[in-house]
Every structure is written in structure tokens, then in C-alpha cells.
């Protein structure tokens, strides 16, 4: 099975994770239409 990016949809959760693992956040704004 191909590796897929496991996106979070909540920046606050992303910040919490980033703080714990010392990694930057990659934030993508997208238009689903």
C-alpha cells in the first residue's frame, strides 16, 4: 500500500504535535472545489 500524507485538519493539534516532536508545521490551504 502506498504511503499517504496523514493530514491534520486542526492547526492547534498540529502545534501541539510540533511542540512535542520538534518539527515544523507544513500548512496547506486548499480549495476542495
Amino acid at each position, binding site marked *: 500500500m502506498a504511503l499517504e500524507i496523514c493530514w491534520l485538519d486542526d492547526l492547534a493539534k498540529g502545534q501541539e504535535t510540533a511542540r512535542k516532536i520538534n*518539527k515544523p*508545521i507544513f500548512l496547506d490551504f486548499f480549495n476542495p472545489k
Partner: protein
Amino acid sequence: MGAVTYPNEKVAKFVSLNFVPVKIETSNTAMMQRFSVSWTPTLLVLDAEGREHYRGVGFFAPEDLIPTLMTAKGRWALDTDQFAEARALLEEVISLHPDMETAAEALFFLGVAKYKMSHDPKNLREAYDELTAKFPTSSWTKQADHYRLISK
């Protein structure tokens, strides 16, 4: 991006290993306003406090996104005082993608990272000399122009 770049296995592996990936829909106007986003795709690299360290607008092909994000991570490391990591990341961009425009950006910030580690301004002059030789027309070379005043 969602149709071509993100499904690419190398991109997925790189992003998953190096970042906390977060996707926000454009219908989230509060977030759009918070980060002054008016067009998509807009890609940001943030630190854990939500501060922006890199912004890219428009489409990135898989082969462009990886070195661009590597440079962006180098800038994040530099801005958060992780100078050794910044240096390693930026040197990797220059080594693996020497002909890409992002290598000029990496060269610029590598000079800064080395200077931050050594406090020796010659590191900035060396960055200017290398930029002039390798990327004479790059905006990063112009932005490093004042370093030519530093003696060798």
C-alpha cells in the same frame, strides 16, 4: 497539488518524516484572514507557536516541492536557533539540487547559519562570492550584495 504532488510517494515520505502536515479548507475564513491568504495553493511552514517561516504560492511539482520544503525547514531551524540542523539541511539542498533556484536561497541562508555559529562575517562574504559565481541573476544574490563589502 492534491491530484499530482501529494500522492507522489517521495513527497509523502518527505513530508511525513520532516513536518507535521495540516490542511485547511479555504472556507475557513478565520484561518485565511489570520495568515493573510488570498489565493490557493498557498503553502506555509510554521513553528509550534504558529509563526510563519516560509510561504509559497502556486503549484509545485513533486521534484520542486521536496527541495523547496527542505530549504523551508532549514529556515525554520535557523529562525528557531537550531543552527547545526539548519546548516545540515541547507547543505543538503545545495548538494542534491545544485541547479535549482531554491539552492540560491539555501546558499544565502547557509551563510547566515554559518555566521550565527561562528560569528565570523567571512561566512557571509563567502556566501556572496558563491552566489555571484553560481547564481549571478538570482534575487538572493542581489539580496546578499552588501556582503561584498566584507573583506576576505
